[in-house]
């Protein structure tokens, strides 16, 4: 197998293997908390922090973690960082913490995070693991912002709480309700796949 370069490790998670838009991982928070840009941003940053922190520790301790208990140890490390993120958000942005509710604690079971530990951080040096985690974390954050941006603009007529269309705009309430999450994700996936297929067709011709 060809050895990857550091930039490939970073960019893979951002675009080519984006956790939400390509790998379809972490869809639960991607659908549930993206009813506003602020919530998407907070969830994205919290997940980015947990992913980077866990990858750092898993990569550092990979030679000391016995194969039999590796998953339990990864989960313990991930849960620790999730609790740190939970307390940090509660102290710094309590209103956002309240809006995200149980979804912060549920970052523990986001399979994207455990997946990166098992597939990458447990086998590669610290620097590369951090680059991979930062790329995947950024990709997740971008996907959440793409979904959250569309939902808030159409569903509330605002972006980050700032009104965009004036008082005569009638918000599409469905966009901030659960169906709006599925619709927005569906349209983004449609657009991404269409773009990819067109690129591939051009390459062939």
């Amino acid at each position, binding site marked *: 197998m060809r050895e990857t370069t550091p930039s490939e490790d970073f960019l893979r998670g951002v675009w080519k293997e984006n956790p939400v838009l390509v790998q379809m991982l972490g869809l639960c928070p991607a659908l549930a908390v993206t009813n506003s840009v602020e919530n998407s941003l907070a969830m994205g940053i919290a997940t980015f922090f947990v992913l980077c922190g866990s990858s750092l520790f898993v990569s550092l301790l990979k030679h000391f*973690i016995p194969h*039999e*208990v590796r998953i339990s140890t990864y989960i*313990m*490390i991930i849960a620790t960082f999730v609790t740190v993120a939970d307390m940090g958000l509660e102290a710094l942005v309590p209103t956002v913490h309240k809006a995200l509710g149980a979804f912060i604690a549920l970052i523990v079971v986001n399979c994207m995070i455990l997946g990166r530990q098992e597939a990458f951080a447990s086998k590669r040096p610290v620097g590369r693991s951090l680059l991979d985690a930062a790329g995947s974390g950024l990709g997740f954050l971008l996907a959440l912002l793409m979904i959250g941006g569309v939902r808030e603009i159409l569903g509330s007529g605002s972006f980050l709480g700032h009104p965009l269309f004036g008082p005569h705009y009638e918000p599409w309430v469905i966009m901030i309700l659960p169906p709006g999450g599925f619709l927005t994700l569906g349209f983004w996936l449609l657009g991404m796949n269409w773009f990819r297929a067109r690129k591939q067709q051009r390459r062939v011709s």
Partner: protein
Amino acid sequence: MSQADQPKSASAASIVLTLCFAGVLAGLLLVVVYQATQPRIQAYKDKMLKLAVEEVLQHPASYQTLYLVDGKLTPDLPAGSSAHDFEQVFHGFDQQGHSLGFALVHARAGFQDTVRVIFGYHPQTGDMLGMRVLESKETPGLGDKIEKEAWFGEQFSSCTLPLIGVKAGKGTGDRHEVDMITGATISSRAVIRILNEAFTEWNPLLQPLAEEEQP
């Protein structure tokens, strides 16, 4: 995977040691972060509690905090203790200093985790003044409606304790009836149970104070 590629199996002692070490490291990190964040979290909770007390007592002119010390309610804290060491009750007064009622914070298990509510009521009649869920981690989209559906919280201001939960829209108009939320029945029941328990527990202590005027 060839036999040479297979990882060496670790001894039981090494497995236990690894998990213990990881646990201790995680515990230490959490203690440090807890100590650093707790003052800010507590300050925010206190601010929110103050707003909630005013809301569930229907914006009293003033209120007095009473602490449960050795089974008795007193406005004075024992020397050297903190307000957070004792259960608290808030006694609201109108402009003339007449008692409006009491606000209580009570917490019990919900569907997933502890549900913490605050409510205001008058001990002699049992008439409620308001109710608000302070903390809950109920199922997103279902149980969390006890906090997010405004009508659920608002209906309590026209209820009388003790409460009975009824299916939404199936009530007879009795003041003891509370409409439960469809899809959040267990969490709605939990809120009703918490209020009834608090009423049974606290009412004997609060009734003698109900006619007291502002000191």
